[in-house]
């Protein structure tokens, strides 16, 4: 006579949950106390410079590397005790091309299919669907080593998706891929996401992070911020001012001495000036012009700017280095 249990407040638990996840290699603390949630059906962007601990984190989540401390669950399974289940429900695309260059496109696909228990007719059907989506149909008999960078990337993705995983880890999927192919890849990733697959993507291209539903910033093994890109960018609202000047290098040196200026970066014809607090453009314009004039680098124009994730990231890094 038990009434059916009413669904809880969150019927779809997060696809990835980590709790103070840590990994050290000897003296090096690669990942420190990482606590993170990735929602199901989202594209999560994992950002940070090289050596920030992104790949180490992915390896722990895939079950390739045991953590030295902390816990994590992927697709509801513990990463240490239920590695088998995780392997069956996740796909992994490594940073470097890691398929067999001497095997053909089809042979690579069928091998990884077999490894995940997808073979025969099922593999053929899956291959037809995926190859059509990633446009590899005509290249089936080509040896993987002869493919261009973008094609290799698409083949690797198809191989990672052969067993219809709930979650796919993509480690730097767009590194070294040209803009057109990058665009195609993103189109495919969105389609995949709409089909219900969750995606965990690392990148150090911050413009790409803007395409993700949620992002996390890693720096020196620590998660320093995470959330929706739109919300995160707002933290910098009214802290950015654009400047047009001809003698940019002198101007940068001068503007950095102005009180309240956190950093100044050159972007082509424009300088991006970031303050450590909220400011009104017209109230700081005077100070900026005065400092620049003293350095004989008069400013042409001063105007408010929209923040990007890159600005935010530079701001975090700056604060961190100042503290250190």
């Amino acid at each position, binding site marked *: 006579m038990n009434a059916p249990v009413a669904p809880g407040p969150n019927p779809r638990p997060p696809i990835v949950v980590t709790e103070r996840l840590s990994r050290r290699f000897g003296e090096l603390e690669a990942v420190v106390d990482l606590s993170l949630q990735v929602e199901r059906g989202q594209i999560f962007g994992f950002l940070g410079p090289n050596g920030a601990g992104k790949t180490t984190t992915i390896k722990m989540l*895939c079950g*390739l590397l045991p953590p030295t401390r902390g816990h994590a669950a992927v697709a509801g399974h513990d990463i240490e005790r239920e590695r088998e289940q995780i392997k069956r429900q*996740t796909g992994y695309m*490594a940073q470097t*091309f890691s398929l067999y260059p001497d095997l053909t496109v089809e042979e690579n696909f069928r091998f990884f299919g*077999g*490894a*995940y*228990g997808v073979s025969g007719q099922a593999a053929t059907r899956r291959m037809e669907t995926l190859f059509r989506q990633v446009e590899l149909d005509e290249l089936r008999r080509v*040896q993987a080593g002869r493919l261009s960078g973008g094609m290799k990337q698409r083949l690797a993705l198809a191989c990672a998706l052969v067993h219809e995983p709930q979650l796919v880890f993509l480690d730097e999927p767009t590194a070294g891929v040209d803009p057109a192919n990058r665009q195609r890849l993103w189109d495919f990733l969105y389609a995949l996401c709409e089909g219900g697959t969750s995606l965990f993507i690392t990148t150090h291209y911050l413009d790409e992070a803007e395409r993700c539903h949620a992002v996390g910033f890693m720096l020196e093994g620590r998660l320093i911020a995470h959330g929706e890109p739109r919300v995160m960018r707002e933290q910098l609202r009214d802290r950015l001012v654009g400047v047009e000047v001809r003698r940019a290098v002198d101007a940068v040196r001068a503007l950095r001495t102005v009180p309240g200026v956190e950093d100044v970066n050159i972007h082509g014809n424009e300088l991006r000036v970031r303050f450590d607090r909220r400011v009104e453009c017209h109230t700081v314009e005077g100070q900026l012009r005065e400092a620049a004039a003293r350095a004989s680098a008069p400013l042409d124009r001063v105007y408010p700017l929209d923040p990007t994730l890159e600005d935010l990231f530079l701001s975090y890094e700056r604060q961190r280095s100042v503290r250190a």
Partner: protein
Amino acid sequence: MIWNVYHLALKEFLHLVRDRRTLAFLIFIPSVLTVIFGYAIGNPRVTGVRTRVLDLDGGRIAYEYITAIEDTLTFRADVREHATEADVAQAEEDLLHDRINAIVVLPAGLSRALDDGRSATVRLVVDGSDTFMAPTVLGELAKTTVQQNIFVVANMLEREGKARTIEEGMTKAAPIRLDTEYRFNPDLKSQNFVMPGVIGLILQLLAVIVMATSIARERERGTMEQLAVTPLTAAEIFIGKLVPYFVLALLDTVNAMLVARFLFGVSVAGHYPVVVTLLVIFILSSLGIGQLISTVSRNQGQAVLLAVFYTLPAFVLSVAFTPIETQPQNVRPASLLFPLTYFCHGFRAAILRQASFADLRTDLLALTAFVLITFGASILLLRMRPDVR
């Protein structure tokens, strides 16, 4: 399980087939090596030693002694009759400059002394820098000297009337006779000893080096990481990778044995099940060692170096081409560390003496132990750290 192994084995086969040149090498080189080794490695026999024979005596007995030296294959005698002390000094000089290997000096008065029933001394000087040749020269001349002694005594007995003929004198001088026979290899054909060593060595070389690069190559290319995220287990990866190389090694065995049969006349006289069992376990043990090397190597370079460091001592310390009896006593136990030792011993016994499973119990058990240890250790290491880089 079986399907996972099948998919991996198929992939490894494809790797082999795609690399045509390497495949051709792997198939033909063993046969070529069998031919080369079969001809080059005979019984280690010393012949044609450049010997200066200096006859300072000039008598009958000296003449007979020299004739006996000339009749052996060991010496290539350069005889100087009516030699003087100056010739002896010259010979010493030639020995120093490696123009000759040995000097035999028959002193003046040799024949007369012996005829008078006194003793005389023949002097032999050998270049000791070749430790293999020198003792052989010494042994061969000692044999000649014994024979000549018998002649001298027999002659004396006959002259003194203690024997009616020289033959009777010889019987009296050397009454103990020796009846000898080489069993199992009556003609003492060296190939019968060498071929099992050659086959063993080639199989070991192939299995260890080729297998050693397999997992190391996946690590180097980064594909091991991709394999490690699949549900494939360490044991499946291990066995899947082993299968194609096992088949290849069997193929090479058949090739090498055909060469041994038709070029060198070495045929299998023993029981086939014993021979095949021995071969299979030996191949597996070599592949196991290769895999173990592979699992501890980060890249192919390391793997090949380790494999060479393993196979070279095996070449010297096992009994592939030289009997264990040629090794110094305190080094002999080292041969027990190499499957090649057990294989060569067992294989020789199996093809020449028709040894049974019971006869080869020790060899088979030792090889099986190698298989179990290397397989177990490799799988364990592979599970613990699949993508060491």
